[in-house]
């Protein structure tokens, strides 16, 4: 997995729930590709059109709270989000994200200083984030989980591993 991620920041607040990430009314759509157009629909319906592959979502505490719907991390991965950096995550979302190939990082400080449009660099070797001349530590992510993200999630990761 590429240990360096650089991307433009899209900034969100605290307690971004999975109904915000993908509202109930769009869950019956057949594919994640159709669904991803409605990411953050109740909050910022323009966002899916603006997010470019590699961009970084920066949010506050408790990102991904609420419903266990796995479509939420799946559509963020499908939008090409490079990673999410938040103060903390809800636990079901946390598991679902890695299972769907979406990298989540925790930083206590970044959210309070990063603004939308900033460019943030993440180094997964040194476990540091850089924003202009400021640097912040992130909680290290175990190698297995990074490999899982690189493979695109738990199922492709296991298939790859079992094929060896």
């Amino acid at each position, binding site marked *: 997995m590429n240990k360096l991620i650089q991307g433009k920041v899209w900034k969100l607040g605290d*307690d971004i*729930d999975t*109904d*915000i990430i993908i*509202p*109930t*009314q769009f*869950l*019956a*759509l*057949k594919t994640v590709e159709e669904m991803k157009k409605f990411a953050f*629909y*109740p*909050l910022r319906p323009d966002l899916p059109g603006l997010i470019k592959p590699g961009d970084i979502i920066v949010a506050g*505490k*408790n990102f991904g*709270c*609420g*419903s*266990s*719907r*796995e*479509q939420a*991390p799946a559509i963020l991965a499908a939008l090409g989000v490079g990673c999410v950096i938040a103060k*903390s995550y*809800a*636990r*079901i979302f946390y*598991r*679902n994200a890695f*299972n*769907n190939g979406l990298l989540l990082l925790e930083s206590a400080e970044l959210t309070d200083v990063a603004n939308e449009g900033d460019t943030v660099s993440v180094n997964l070797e040194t476990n540091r984030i850089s924003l202009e001349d400021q640097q912040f530590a992130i909680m290290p992510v175990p190698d297995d989980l990074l490999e899982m993200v690189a493979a695109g*999630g*738990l*199922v*492709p990761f296991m*298939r790859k591993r*079992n094929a060896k």
Partner: protein
Amino acid sequence: MGMTMGEKILAKASGKEAVKPGEIITAKVDLCMTNDATTHISIDIFEKQLKTKKIFDPKKVVFIIDHNIPSESVKTAEVQKKMRDFARNHQINFYEGAGICHQIMIEEFVSPGQLVVAADSHTCSYGGIGALGIGVGSTDFTSVMNTGEIWLMVPETLKFNIHGEFQKGVYARDLILKIIKDIGANGANYKIMEFGGPAIKDFTIDDRIVLCNMAVEAGAKSGLIEADEKVVDYIKSRGRREIYLFKSDEDAVYEKIYDYDLAMLEPMVAKPHFVDNGCPVSEIGDVRIDQGFIGSCNNGRIEELRVAARILKGRKIHPQVRLLVTPASKEVYLQAIKEGLIDIFVASGAMVLNPNCSVCWGGCQGVIGEGETLISTGTRNFKGRAGHANSHVYLASAATVAASALTGRITDPREWDHE
């Protein structure tokens, strides 16, 4: 060092003498369940990506259609057909239209001391009967359905000691809204919320489910209450015999202990758009409502319906309010018919709907329009959760919803709720 009841259940499930917080274990599940909100994803993974297409034990797997029943669109009908066919082909337990998944699980399957994993965030409800219910997503569910196992981190436990007696017009629902307001929407993140203390023995099983069901709204992995005689009698009356009663040790280690005195508790509401945005009804001010909802896996059981019926009896709901009543299961519905509660609801002007998740998840019925306000006994009040992105959901007890439906404004039920 002693263990909490949650640690004991996880030790049993992982075949160990003891476990401690932070430890990662592989646990065997006693039951797993999934509903129509997401099962099609699990079926796709199972059919298209698994090499060994095996169900670990079909008797321990339950599929329940409850979120969009009856189906409201062709898309939903297709998703449900896929689920129905899969359940039939693999001889999996299957229910549709019989009630909300967690209520059916409690009525028909779950026993104290079990570990239950389900693809729904409110799986924590089973703590009300002393079982550890853990919500997961579709990938984890598929893996559990395939292998019967799951890796879990043993969580820390927070203890909530409950003392005293409820005032008239105040309910378990108000208590959990107050606790979530106090500790915040991630105040129990990754942890177990264990409810105990001297008052818990007086809580009915329905009340205990109300507390544990909303543990996830404080970020918890689960909620738990020690099962007692009341629970054992209920489980036995349903013909289930395999019961494990786990109690937390005297010297169990809790991350934090909280104390709540019920006598100090007032009816609560959670204001838009967060469950922890709580406020006593007495301080809410003048809030006009368009719709009321009584139902959900939190608050659609017979006791809540009795409270609502007591308030609505012989009265008419406000002409500018719609009131939806959705019993949590067919069994609850039949009991409500038997007790004459349904007559009261219909006579008051309420719409009584078949058991399902209804407007609590904003999928198939009762969704609200732009600028409208709903007062609900549902589980969540997130922005857009019940319909239009610019609508408002207030959470409250069945008593508060019923009183508010009469006046057309959010109303303190204590003036209306007389036994």
